[in-house]
């Protein structure tokens, strides 16, 4: 039995960096029940898709859709007062919510209506599901709203980013949370009507762009 006493820091390091494991600690874990249980606990609570810091870009290309959107809209430098528009935010407890994160250069900030986006900003969406099972994200073009993402709803940043193009105008995103998976028509209809009910919750964002 060794006399070493190990901290959470030492065991977190052991667990997170397998390539640099301390042989003494390896040996200690074989005999120390508490440390062994701690490491097991770390493994148990780990969720592999917890990469909230850097949302992945989607494999599918939705850039043409955004480009078409930007081309179709005249130069607007203020946020549109959309009818029925709700302030973008994490909602109060019990109500779903969506927050937009703007990644610009080396910084990531939470978007608010006074912040204009710029070309090449990456927009990520953080969702508070509050019981909703599915999330859909739509972006518009000249012909209407098009589905850019659909997946299960988890309280975290969605695994993709939307990159702002360099065309003048505004960018828009609609987010639909639902209790069950919806077909594209139903999601488009919810977006158009900005439906909110016990089974369906819609919000829409309009981002003014900085002029070059």
């Amino acid at each position, binding site marked *: 039995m060794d006399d070493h*006493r*190990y*901290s*959470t*820091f*030492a*065991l*977190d*390091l052991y667990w*997170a*960096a397998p390539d*640099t494991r301390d042989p003494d600690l390896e040996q200690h874990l074989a005999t*120390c029940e*508490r*440390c062994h*249980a*701690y490491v097991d*606990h*770390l493994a148990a*609570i780990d969720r592999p898709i917890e990469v*909230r*810091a*850097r949302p992945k870009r989607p494999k599918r290309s939705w850039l043409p859709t955004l480009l078409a959107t930007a081309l179709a809209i005249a130069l607007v430098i203020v946020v549109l007062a959309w009818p029925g528009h709700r302030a973008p935010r994490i909602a109060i407890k019990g109500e779903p919510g969506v927050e937009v*994160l703007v*990644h610009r250069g*080396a*910084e*990531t900030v939470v978007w608010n209506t006074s912040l204009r986006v710029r070309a090449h900003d990456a927009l990520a969406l*953080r969702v508070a599901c509050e019981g909703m099972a599915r999330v859909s994200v739509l972006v518009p073009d000249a012909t209407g709203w098009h589905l850019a993402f659909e997946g299960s709803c988890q*309280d*975290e*940043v969605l695994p993709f980013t939307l990159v702002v193009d360099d065309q003048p105008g505004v960018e828009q995103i609609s987010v639909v949370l639902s209790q069950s998976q919806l077909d594209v028509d139903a999601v488009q209809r919810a977006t158009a009507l900005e439906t909110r009910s016990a089974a369906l919750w819609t919000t829409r964002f309009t981002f003014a762009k900085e002029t070059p």
Partner: protein
Amino acid sequence: MRAKCRRLLGDTSAAEDAAQETFLRLLNAGLRPDAEPRVVLAWLYRTGTRISIDMLRERRRHPFDPAHLADAPCGGDPAAALEARSALARIAGATPDDELAAAVLCRIDSLTHPEAAAVMHVSERTVRRLLDRFDERLTTEHA
């Protein structure tokens, strides 16, 4: 990070918010991509501790499940950590950040003084001094 933040904040939802905020800051931290794991973990501990302390101060009530401290490794003492956590929640509003950080790291996270010094970018002597002040503050509170 969730487990670390939960040891102080006591509930999973708040801990997840703190952990997420920590990783968002990591994105902007400018750490070298080839930074050693120990350096990155120290950064995460330092930042996660600050964020959790701020969140603890903002919350009016501090519901806490002692089970979050039960799985301490052999370097920690769950009973002492629970006592420290309770004291820390009481006096967080009137205690300087560095004292609280030292208390969180050494008394709740069970870091050794050298580990806490490395995380906080201070000397071991400073860590000891901060812990002494924290204890003095508790003594004064009880007096």
